[in-house]
Each structure stands twice: as structure tokens, then as C-alpha cells.
């Protein structure tokens, strides 16, 4: 059968079982939008191409399937860059299809021509400029395979307009032609046994569980391993929910804003069972002081992650689901011999946990603490809901405070920290989970304003997401750094809480909007919002702008120095300032100078990098 390239694109997507595409039309991709009308695909018309790729990510996060987006050339393709980079960092399977100017015009700076292959090379797992119409089905099949296998990631296909318009005899490729791409699936048997040997003799083992377990759908296997060997578990920002928070061995989240006990557990551990995690700087802090006593087992499907940041004792390359299954099998074979004696260790951790809870206070003044808002959201929407966060303080509080109960219940942008992720990603996630599962975006007021135009897509396509804005009227996370590291010199971090008026904004979109300004209103407002399941809803929660996220390990600092509260920080800061002033006076005296010069105050905290080597969140 003769088909056009454009028809071949649609047909290939259908062959692969793709059901939804997020996109935005334009000149170069127009040929593909014509057969789309008949195709067995749902198209969600976003309002900005960044929304298309984040929605595809949200869809992939929630479903485990490849999220697909399709946009035109030039500015549309460049609008994808942030989302592709986000998907690369968080290993999200995404297939992006971009139109390109006619192949005869490539290189001539034609209208809406951009070097999309070059621009997206460093932000994709793989990309390809399709140079013949016959290549379309094979390119799409391979791209889909690369996106979803091994370490998942974004793959982009750039298809020139003339190639979309040419015709050829349709043929679906029987084979993948990828001689250089063969991800390892099974772990090496000896290494698996070595790993179990190490676990068996460990005194203070900890499972360091990362997002790779979620990608691999390895929740059940992890649970078996943890139960069989009675291992304490920390779950990274990308892995929240891979083991339920109420599991007796669950210690919460490690890292810069992690739970105290999770951070301590890694610092004191004599063995890290690292599963699908990558020793990210936001987890390790100063690498030289991270988990200093621990041997390391590292399971990852990407060999390049193993040994990248931390030397490893037992490396295991393979799919997390398969390898954790192998670990369980070997442990089970060995019976009691494989089970380490962790009773004392777990008792110790239980004490640390009890002694160091999150320090959350809700004063009676009525002003809503953001943490109270997060708890109210969870109380209203419950464990069934999927929660999608933006980037900032609200994200950290959500990750800390919601008692995660299952994988894929928590969706956020970890590696890239992309503000604006939540609104479109929540829309994509809702498309994936369907009518019966509520999807709640827990967004910041700053983040929300980066991509809220996508609410129009939610309204138009009847995608009932609840958008809860934790509205502190500030770029809270950045302001927190200004409070702590820049002597409270707040530079450009205020956003008027009432601009825009989010209830009026809801009205403008023709959807319900609610506002909670006091603790008294919070519960009823959330209940009202949760009762609406057939329409998008915006909830404006006005919260205390001054609240800061703790615990905190300052960027680049040692995880041995966890600051648990603002009070503790102030005490330290005052001590440091006093100490520095004393030293300066002494130095001045010795140099024969007068009193202290107030103009050259030292940074508030000695040892904390003001020039953060990793950049701000």
C-alpha cells in the first residue's frame, strides 16, 4: 500500500500502541497533522511546545509508557529543549517528533529552519534527521525502542517536510537495526552473589533506592528484598513511594532537604545497597564526606553511572527489576545465612528517627504554614491521588510530608529542577491515569506562572486536574538562600500574591477557583476542590512567605552537618558571626587598627558556600 511519509508517521505510532500525542502544529509538520484527523490517536493541543514535552513526560512518569510529542520546526523545536533536557536528567521515556524545513532547503537558513539535530544532541539520549521517506517507520520504531529500553530517555526525530509529503510502499520493519545499542538486562551472576555476601556480613546496611527502580517497575522486587533481609531503606526524591512510607524499614528521603534519619543512616552505614540511584550532588553533599564508612553495591542499567561519582565495591549492570529479582533469588537460596543481623542498627535508627522528626509548627495565628497546606491537600485527595510538583520549597515539603504509598504516585522534576514542570506534567499524567484517579498539581506561585497557559488545554480537552498553588508570594527557595547565604538581602524574589488573582484566573478559564487564606478555611476549601472531579480546578492557598525548608545541608557541605530548623540555623549563624567579629577585632588590634569595620561582615555561615559550586536549585 502506498502511503505518504505523514501517513507513515501516524501508522507507525499506531503500530507501537501509542494512544496519545501532545502537540502543536505549524508549517513544517502540517503534512502530519492532516492524517492525524483519521488516525487512531488522541491529540492534546497544548499552548506552548514546552507544555507538549512536559505533558509527554508526565504521561510517561505516570504510565511507564513512552510519552509522545509532535511539533513543527524552528521555534517550536527549540521550545522543546528544556523538556528534553528534563527527560534526559530524570530518565523519562519521551519520543519527540519535529517537522523540519524541506531537505532541499536545509542549510540555507530557510524560514523556521533551526539546527534541531545539533541543538538537541546534548539533551537527548539519541536523535536522528530522517533523510528518506522509507526510513520513517524504522526510525520511529528504533526511536521508541531507544527511549523506552535500557536507561530510558528522550529521543527526537527531525523529519523534513518534503519527506513527509513523499510516498512509498508501506513496510513495517521486522527488525531493529541498532548494532551499537544493546543494554544489559541481567546482572552478572557472580556480582549478584558477591553483593549478597556483602549484605550478609554488614552490620549497618542501607538500601539507597533511586528513581531507576520506579522506571524499572521494581517496587515489588524491592519490597521482597527489604522484607527478606530486613534492610532499612532511604528513597531519593525520584523514588518516593517505591516503598511505602509506613513500611517499618522506610527512613524517608536523603539529601539536601531530606529526613534527618535518612541522611544519618547513609552517614553511619557500613554498606550502601544502591539501586537505580546515581550519587547526585543533592543527595551526597560533599562527596568526600558522604557515607564515609560504607562499602558500595551499585546496581544501574547505565554502566556510566557506576563509579562516576563514588567508587564501588560491587558493580552490577542491569535492569533494576531483573537484578533486584536476582538478588532476592540468591538471598532466598541461602536462607538465614544471607540475612544480616540488623536488629541493633534498626533500633538505633528508630531512636534517631524518633529524636529527629521534621520540625513543623503551625501557630494559632491563622496564617497557613505551607506544610499545613501540603498536609491538607493530602488529607483531601488521599492516597489514591497522583501528585505532581513544581520546583522549589513546595516541592521539598510535598516530598517530605506526603506519606507516599506507591510508585508513580509522586511525579516531579529532580535532575534539572525545571520550574513550570507541574502544570503540563499533571495534565499528561491525568491523561495517563484516566478518570478514576485524581491528579493534583502541587505547584509554587512562581512555577505556576511559567506554564499555567496549559490550563486552557486541560479545559479544552476535558482533563480534570486540580492545580493547588502554594502561594507564598515569593520565589521561596531562592529567597531562602538569600535569607541564609546573602544576609537576607532579598533580590528580585517577591511576586505579588494577588497578581494574578488565581480565583479570577480560574474564572477566566471558566473553571472553579478557590482560595484559602487561613487555617480555618483550609480544610473546607480542599474538600470543595476535591469534590470536583469532572473539571480542572485552581486552588490558591495563601501561605506564610517566611517559612524555610529544613532539614538542610548547605550545597557542597558535609552531610554530617545537617541543620534541622531555622532556630538552629540562627544559633549557628550568631555563633559564627560572633566568632568572626572576635577574630577580626583581634586581628585589627594586632595590626594596630581601631574597632571592627561593620562594612566587611563575613558571610553568615562559615564553611557554607555562598558561591555554590553546583548552582542554586
Amino acid at each position, binding site marked *: 500500500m502506498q502511503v505518504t511519509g505523514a501517513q507513515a508517521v501516524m501508522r507507525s505510532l499506531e503500530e507501537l500502541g501509542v494512544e496519545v500525542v501532545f502537540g502543536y502544529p505549524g508549517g513544517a509538520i502540517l503534512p502530519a497533522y492532516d492524517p492525524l484527523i483519521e488516525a487512531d490517536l488522541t491529540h492534546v493541543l497544548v499552548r506552548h511546545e514546552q507544555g507538549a514535552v512536559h505533558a509527554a513526560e508526565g504521561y510517561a512518569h505516570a504510565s511507564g509508557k513512552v510519552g509522545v510529542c509532535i511539533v513543527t520546526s524552528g521555534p517550536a523545536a527549540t521550545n522543546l529543549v528544556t523538556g528534553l533536557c528534563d527527560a534526559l536528567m530524570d530518565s523519562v521515556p519521551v519520543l519527540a517528533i519535529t517537522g523540519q524545513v524541506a531537505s532541499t532547503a536545509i542549510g540555507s537558513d530557510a524560514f523556521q529552519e533551526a539546527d534541531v*539535530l*545539533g541543538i538537541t*544532541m*546534548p539533551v537527548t*539520549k*539519541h536523535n536522528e*534527521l530522517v*533523510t528518506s521517506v522509507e526510513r520513517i517507520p524504522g526510525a520511529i520504531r528504533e526511536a521508541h*525502542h*531507544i527511549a523506552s529500553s535500557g536507561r530510558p530517555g528522550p529521543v527526537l526525530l527531525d523529519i523534513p517536510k518534503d519527506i513527509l509529503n513523499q510516498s512509498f510502499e508501506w513496510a513495517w520493519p521486522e*527488525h*531493529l*537495526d*541498532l*548494532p*551499537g*545499542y*544493546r543494554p544489559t538486562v541481567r546482572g552478572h551472576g557472580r556480582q549478584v552473589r558477591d553483593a549478597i555476601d556483602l549484605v550478609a556480613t554488614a552490620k549497618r546496611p542501607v538500601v539507597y533506592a533511586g528513581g531507576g527502580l520506579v522506571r524499572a517497575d521494581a517496587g515489588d522486587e524491592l519490597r521482597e528484598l527489604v522484607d527478606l533481609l530486613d534492610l532499612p531503606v532511604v528513597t531519593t526524591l525520584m523514588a518516593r513511594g517505591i516503598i511505602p512510607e509506613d513500611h517499618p524499614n522506610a527512613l524517608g528521603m536523603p539529601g539536601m532537604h531530606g529526613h534527618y534519619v535518612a541522611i544519618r543512616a547513609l552517614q553511619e552505614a557500613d554498606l550502601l545497597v544502591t539501586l537505580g540511584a546515581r550519587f547526585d550532588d543533592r543527595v551526597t553533599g560533599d562527596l568526600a564526606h558522604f557515607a564515609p564508612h560504607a562499602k558500595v553495591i551499585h546496581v544501574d542499567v*547505565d*554502566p*556510566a553511572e557506576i*563509579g*562516576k561519582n563514588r567508587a564501588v565495591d560491587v558493580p552490577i549492570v542491569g535492569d533494576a527489576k531483573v537484578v533486584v529479582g536476582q538478588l532476592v533469588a540468591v538471598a532466598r537460596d541461602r536462607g538465614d545465612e544471607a540475612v544480616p543481623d540488623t536488629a541493633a542498627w534498626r533500633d538505633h535508627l528508630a531512636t534517631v528517627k524518633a529524636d529527629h522528626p521534621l520540625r513543623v509548627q503551625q501557630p494559632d495565628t491563622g496564617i497557613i504554614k505551607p506544610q499545613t497546606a501540603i498536609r491538607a491537600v493530602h488529607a483531601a485527595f488521599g492516597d489514591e491521588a497522583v501528585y505532581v510538583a513544581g520546583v522549589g520549597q513546595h516541592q521539598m515539603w510535598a516530598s517530605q510530608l506526603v506519606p507516599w504509598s506507591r510508585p508513580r504516585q509522586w511525579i516531579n522534576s529532580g535532575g534539572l529542577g525545571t520550574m513550570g514542570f507541574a502544570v503540563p506534567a499533571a495534565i499528561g499524567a491525568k491523561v495517563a491515569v484516566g478518570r478514576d484517579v485524581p491528579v493534583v498539581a502541587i505547584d509554587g506561585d512562581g512555577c505556576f506562572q511559567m506554564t499555567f497557559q496549559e490550563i486552557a488545554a486541560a479545559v479544552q480537552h476535558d482533563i480534570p486536574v486540580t492545580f493547588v498553588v502554594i502561594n507564598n508570594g515569593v520565589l521561596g527557595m531562592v529567597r531562602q538562600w538569600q535569607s541564609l547565604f546573602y544576609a537576607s538581602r532579598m533580590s528580585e524574589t517577591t511576586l505579588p500574591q494577588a497578581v494574578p488573582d488565581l480565583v479570577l484566573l480560574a474564572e477566566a478559564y471558566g473553571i472553579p477557583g478557590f482560595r484559602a487564606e487561613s487555617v480555618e478555611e483550609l480544610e473546607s476549601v480542599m474538600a470543595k476542590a476535591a469534590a470536583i472531579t469532572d473539571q480542572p480546578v485552581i486552588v490558591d492557598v495563601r501561605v506564610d512567605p517566611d517559612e524555610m525548608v529544613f532539614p538542610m545541608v548547605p550545597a557542597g557541605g558535609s552531610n554530617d552537618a545537617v541543620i534541622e530548623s531555622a532556630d538552629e540555623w540562627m544559633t549557628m549563624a550568631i555563633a559564627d558571626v560572633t566568632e568572626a567579629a572576635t577574630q577580626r577585632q583581634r586581628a585589627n588590634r594586632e595590626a594596630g587598627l581601631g574597632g571592627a569595620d561593620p562594612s566587611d561582615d563575613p558571610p553568615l555561615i562559615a564553611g557554607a558556600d555562598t558561591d555554590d559550586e553546583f548552582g542554586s536549585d
Partner: protein
Amino acid sequence: MQTHTLSVLVENRPGVLARISGMFSRRSYNIHSLAVGPTDDERVSRLTIVVGTDPVHLEQVIKQLNKLVHVLKIIELDPTESVQMELQMVKVSADASQRADLFALAEVFGAEVVDVDADTVTIAIAGNTARLGRLAPLLEAYGIREMVRSGTVAIARGDRSITDGSRLRLQRVV
């Protein structure tokens, strides 16, 4: 910093060189030289990359290269167990009276005079970096007009070859 010689087989596809050089610059790895050319299999190109890096980072370089979909195989060639060669051409100022000296010099080094002109002589020399390095200073006395080097190419000594036990077979998967 140490240098390491990597021999890399890649699918012969447009953009593959950009992927490799992009990966190096993005991760701030240091390329000393890079030479690329076809092989006996038209679908496959072979690159020789000399990287300046310590052993820990070398492992990362190899792993990150391996992640590129079009990269088929990578081996590190130990200098003592491989033949490493580079081609260099040097054009020096030389009038008729200096030509004989330059011809003699070329002969001593096993180099070749590849072009002569009223005012210049161009000498080509192939060999390892040390050998190239010995000729250049002697030519400086004449005034070097321009020079060009090809970058190192390398091949294992003995009966071993990059295609041994290889994943190279461009077979179809799945």
C-alpha cells in the same frame, strides 16, 4: 596529564563525529587528537582518539562513548602493544642553496620531500610522536612556513585486532 589512545569503531552515519566531539566538550574531556577514516567495511568508520586524562576519567570517557548509539566498539591501545603513527608535513623556507641540506636531513629521518618550489621545501614524515618531535626543531632553523599533522592512528601489535570477539557484527537485533 597522561594520554590514552582509544580506537573506536562507529557506524558510518552523518553526525556521528559531532556526537563524539560534542560529548567530549560537554563533559570537559580533553581530546589531544582525533583521526577518522573508513574501514574495510563501508558501514563502519574507525576513529583514533588520543585523550588526556587520568585513569578514573578514562573509564568515564569510554563508558560515555559507549552510550552513543552509533558507537560499536572501543578499545584502549597500550603504547607498548600497539603501533602508533602520525603523518606530519612541514613547509620550510629554503632557497636553492639550502635544498641539498634539507634533502639530506629528510633522508636521515626516513622522511620524504614531497614538494619543492623556488623558495620552499615541503617534507612529509610519518612516525610516532617522538620521531616527529625530533625533526621539527631541526627544521625551525630554516623558518617553518606552515605545518600540518594528521593526528595519531594506531593498531594493535601481533595477531590481536579490534574486531576480535567483537560486538561489531552489524547483525540485526531482536
